């Protein structure tokens, strides 16, 4: 089974992936009285393709479902409907094999690591429960820490609380790569770090990806990071993918009004004049009818309020969900 996971060019593919969360408690009384449960449509019918050894960046505001998407792909969340294919096999057919090949690194290394645990114990944890001898485990902890640029003799007996933010994020990365995963989700990997450390971590991410052949899904709202690390970009809004294409296309000629506005509202060293977007992200319990962006869209017309646009290929490799195209 794992072999099939190795073969195809597309590593991960999702088909109409949907995740609903209950918006409020739904007990037996509600069920008996026939009340309809309220759901938050966090991820709503998303299709994405992730090529082997590529970096896909998911951008969007908080509440757009991008973190849920990442958690679904590393099997922390179970989809409500739809399917995820790893290689050619659906997740339900080879759950155990997939689990061993996916990892996630969280945004804030001050929260994702136990401050009082030894670094070597933190990094070793994914190997526990596997039939690996103590000596081999120790050797792999050492290799893993060294691949992320930490000095083993300096850190192995220290605790997370003794390390700086950049060092902690390296430890989190060492923990993620120790089990030789194929696919790593990085949720805002640099945003909790100091400016002069961010570039060190970005370089490291690219280095180890090229060395070990990882495939990344990076979740971020930092456009400079996106531009640097991405091969392909998916823009998410209110649980839907609204635009996707190569990093060049999305950064230089975005077509969806939301993507255009998003790029203008994010501060960067190339963009001093911010143009804030009007309005609020929509409720995911009761999303607007038609296009979900229509209440905030400067170009919205009648059709946008009635009919939901499909993701269409408007030019080679550039997909947009908008009635304007």
């Amino acid at each position, binding site marked *: 089974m794992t072999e099939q996971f190795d073969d195809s060019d597309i590593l991960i593919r999702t088909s109409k992936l949907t995740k609903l969360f209950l918006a409020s408690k739904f007990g037996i009384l509600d069920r008996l009285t026939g009340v309809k449960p309220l759901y938050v449509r966090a991820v709503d019918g998303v299709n994405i393709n992730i090529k082997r050894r590529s970096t896909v960046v998911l951008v969007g505001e908080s509440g757009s479902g991008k973190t849920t998407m990442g958690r679904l792909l590393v099997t922390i969340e179970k989809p409500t409907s739809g399917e995820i294919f790893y290689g050619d096999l659906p997740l339900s057919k080879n759950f155990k094999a997939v689990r061993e090949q996916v990892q996630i690194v969280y945004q804030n290394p001050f929260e994702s690591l136990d401050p009082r645990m030894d670094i070597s114990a933190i990094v070793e944890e994914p190997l526990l429960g596997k039939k690996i001898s103590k000596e081999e485990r120790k050797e792999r902890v050492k290799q893993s820490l060294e691949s992320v640029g930490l000095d083993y003799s300096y850190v192995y007996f220290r605790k997370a609380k003794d390390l700086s933010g950049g060092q902690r994020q390296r430890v989190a990365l060492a923990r993620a790569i120790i089990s030789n995963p194929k696919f790593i989700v990085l949720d805002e990997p640099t945003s909790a770090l100091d400016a*002069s450390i961010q570039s060190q971590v970005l370089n490291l991410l690219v280095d180890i990806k090229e060395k070990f052949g990882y495939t990344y899904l990076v979740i971020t709202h930092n456009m400079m990071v996106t531009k640097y690390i991405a091969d392909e970009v998916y823009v998410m809004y209110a649980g839907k993918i609204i635009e996707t294409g190569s990093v060049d296309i999305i950064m230089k000629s975005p077509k969806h009004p939301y993507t255009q506005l998003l790029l203008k509202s994010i501060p960067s060293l190339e963009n001093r004049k911010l143009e804030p977007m009007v309005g609020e992200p929509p409720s995911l319990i009761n999303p607007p009818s038609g296009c979900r962006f229509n209440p905030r869209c400067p170009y919205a017309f009648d059709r946008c309020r009635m009919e939901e646009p499909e993701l269409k290929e408007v030019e080679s490799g550039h997909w947009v969900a908008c009635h304007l195209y």
Partner: protein
Amino acid sequence: MQQLEIRDLVVHYKVPIGTIKTLFDLQLDIEKGDSIGIVGESGSGKSTLGLSIVGLLPPNARVKGHIVFEGKDLLKMQPGKMNGIRGTGIFMIMQDPFNSLNPVKKIKDQLIEALQVRYSRNGEKAQKGKLYDEVLKRLRDVKLPDPEAIMDRYPHQLSGGQIQRVVIAMGLLLEPDILIADEPTSALDVSVQAQIIALIKELQDRYRMSLLFITHDLSIAYAVSEKLLILYGGRILEFGKTEDVINNPAHPYTEGLLKSFPRGNYKDGKLYTLSGMPPLFTSMPDGCVFNPRCPYAFDRCYKEEPELYNYMDKKVRCFLKHD
């Protein structure tokens, strides 16, 4: 007009193992209507600077120097007198906004109280209904959804982003002469962040409020401020017009920081990195604080500490920019 003058400011913290020097020889003039971005990494002393201006440093802090606001030295003032300046004179939006609100009072009551402080200091009176409407309008300005409901809630019923916006609204209601904002948008979403920045700038223009915007993010400071102050290891390393500092950085630290920002794609090559880490206050290097990471460091940098020299239209703490 000079509104705030900071002279020879030094801040130490007394801790069990000795004293930690966090701010060193800090000089800063704030003119009316200025917007100054204060940029530094964690542990650069940027929050300490804000707290020492509003006089809210923790009890183990020892402060020397002068902070002169409207002819009065705030550091020599009786502790109680400072209450008359905090709020309408100088207001600070704290980095951790949860502690800025009273947990047992409704949002409505806290904001109306703030507004009453402004009215009574200006010697005006206002009806309760008018106060309520003005508060409501400000909550709308900071893009809080459903402000009427929020008015009737207690702080623990709000999310971090909502609390941050309530505190920003409070700061704007007070219309202070100087607004100090310490990472005010860190808990907010990117699109809301742009809205809040635009709002702060608009109000700053309208009331000629001075703004000290403390952030770790150079790109936000670039969008907000007219002048930029780069703090590192408790010292000002560079100070000048924002456009000038970003486009022609003079200090090797600023230069390295700007060079390390990603601009292209990874396929175009590796990012420039500043080696090493920011210094800790417990183990400051001798000489220039930046010397362990500086690519141009020479003998003198390890022996003596450079002063803040005038260089072109900027101030720079580097021997290379001084003859």
